[in-house]
């Protein structure tokens, strides 16, 4: 359930980045407060363990398919929520950077979906509530099952919401939910069973690990409410601002860039260039009704969006963007040529250096 950059909009990515950054700062501060220095290497090595464990598959009885561990809940049980969150965040960062599993801008979404929900929701509110009220393997199993199922359902729901809000995928909310939630129900059950059996194994062989690892975090009352409220506010604010940029103006990003660049000295020559270029563009117009977005008249655009998706595109737009495709291919070739040029230039330079 790693989301990729290509499927999210800048507004959603930015909002989730803001939320995740807030959580990271909060967790780091929390960790500093309870500073148990042993936790630093423990977190690093545990992260590596989850990483390694994710690469070992096991067969799921009766299905013939294989599964692997997600790890968020296990980390929360062993390290406590803030440390587990930071560890999950680092795992997802490494996956994004080295394995192209999820993207850099989508990292906020991914850390939120796979770190926040298991560590800050599923563990304190579900696992701990069930597991702390009694002993026994069955109770741990029930707690782990409930927590990982709910954690993964929330995570999958997050994926769906973020994807639908981004409006890049055509998948409607209902269908996407119907696909994602049952799949993650199954994954959640497997995850819960594996987590419970691991906890059972540790508590039967080395129970002190469980107590020592989560000790300091367990003692303190843990309140997430203020963080949660702050987070929602930050995310809503960022998302709202960004999407307002995007919607108030079809070229919202340009507008916001102009806003950031700000000063008029910069603006006026730019518009002059723009005007000049658009005049050239008009003169060069060979396929006049080119363009997906710009030359659509305002009124038409409005009525189209009102009519909804079915009629969003007039049935026949012959010539539309044949030139666009051509242009895309051309710029690809051009980019290739530039690269080739650099390579030749470089080769000559290094040749000179050698000779």
């Amino acid at each position, binding site marked *: 359930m*790693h989301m990729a*950059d*290509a499927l*999210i*909009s*800048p507004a959603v*990515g930015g909002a989730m980045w803001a939320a995740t950054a807030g959580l*990271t700062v909060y*967790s*780091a501060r929390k*960790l500093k407060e309870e500073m148990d*220095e042993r936790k*630093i*290497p*423990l*977190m*690093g*090595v545990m992260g*590596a*363990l989850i*990483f390694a*464990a994710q*690469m*070992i598959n*096991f*067969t799921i009885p009766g299905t013939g398919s294989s599964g692997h561990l997600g790890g968020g809940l296990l980390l929360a049980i062993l390290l406590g929520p803030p440390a587990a969150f930071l560890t999950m965040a680092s795992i997802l960062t*490494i996956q994004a950077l080295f*394995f192209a599993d999820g*993207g*850099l*801008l989508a990292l906020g979404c991914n850390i939120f979906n796979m770190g926040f929900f298991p560590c800050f929701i599923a563990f304190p509110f579900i696992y701990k509530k069930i597991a702390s009220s009694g002993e026994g393997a069955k109770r741990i199993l029930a707690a782990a099952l409930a927590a990982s199922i709910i954690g993964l359902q929330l995570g999958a729901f997050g994926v769906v919401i973020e994807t639908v809000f981004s409006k*890049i*995928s*055509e*998948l409607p909310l209902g269908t996407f939910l119907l696909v994602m939630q049952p799949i993650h129900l199954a994954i959640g059950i497997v995850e819960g*069973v594996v987590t419970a059996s*691991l906890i059972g194994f540790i508590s039967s062989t080395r129970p002190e690990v469980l107590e020592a690892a989560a000790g300091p975090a367990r003692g303190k009352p843990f309140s997430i409410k203020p963080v949660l409220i702050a987070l929602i506010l930050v995310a809503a604010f960022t998302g709202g601002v960004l999407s307002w940029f995007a919607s108030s103006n079809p070229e919202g*990003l*340009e507008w916001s860039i102009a806003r950031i660049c700000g000063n008029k000295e910069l603006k006026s020559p730019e518009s002059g260039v*723009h005007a000049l270029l658009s005049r050239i*563009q008009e003169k*060069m117009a*060979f396929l006049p009704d*080119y363009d997906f977005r710009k030359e659509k008249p305002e009124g038409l655009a409005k009525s189209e969006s009102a009519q909804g*998706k079915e009629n*969003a595109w007039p*049935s026949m737009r*012959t010539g539309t*963007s*044949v*030139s*666009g*495709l*051509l*242009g895309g291919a*051309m*710029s690809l070739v051009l*980019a*290739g040529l530039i*690269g080739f040029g650099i390579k030749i230039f470089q080769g000559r330079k290094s040749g000179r250096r050698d000779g």
Partner: protein
Amino acid sequence: MGSIDSSFFDIGRLDALSSKDSPVHRIDPRLKVLTTLYFIAIAISFDKYDPAGPVPLLVYPMTLMIIGEIPFSYIAKKLLIASPFVLSVALFNPILDRCPMLNLGPISVSGGLVSFASIMTKYVLTVSAVLALIACTGLDSICSALARMGVPKAFTIQLLFLYRYIFVLGEEAARMTRARALRSFGGKGLGMSVYSSMIGHLLLRTVDRAQRIHLAMLCRGFDGEIRHGEPSKIRLSDLLFLAGWCALFTLLRLYDFPAWLGKGLGRLL
């Protein structure tokens, strides 16, 4: 089992690439990270019915790869195998959005196909930029850059630790998987009970290892901070790198470069 070995080999390869020396390797990591983030934001801000628009942006990852001497085939392979998620979500677009959008002679292309192409273009751009960034920077430099840009220390230390021990535990996990595979006949013993006791043992060893590491670190004077070598200073060429690329991305976003090219070519024909 092979996949574990090869994926660790893969990280090692990226690491090796990042230790080369080239003009792009020497750029200050902070500015490289910022440039790449801006690049991604620009790339994904293109309209979803505009697959051609972001194509010129390819210049950035390509330049990094060529100057940084990162083999194309390596990045291309990673692009192919990574992220089935994108493909599986994007594939729904041609199915769900069938309104014809443009005609190529007798064939009419639906809006869904156009937006599918756009998603895949963005995918290639964003992923190759990230891989190029890491291959010409290396995680150590990125972590120190992040720390100097204000990311909490707990997180950057965690990243470094994780990265260091991925190799150690990865090798251990690969050995265990190989041993399990060699002892299993007809698929027996690959189930959950063996798995959980295997991971459980690995976990216990890991906890012990963490204690040993902590002691060793204390012996060497660890005080909760990891010191990176001498901090790099931002030079003029670094600033030019940032400013030049960001200006180019902005221009490519503001002006529809492929459209002009297409029109110009159409006119010539």
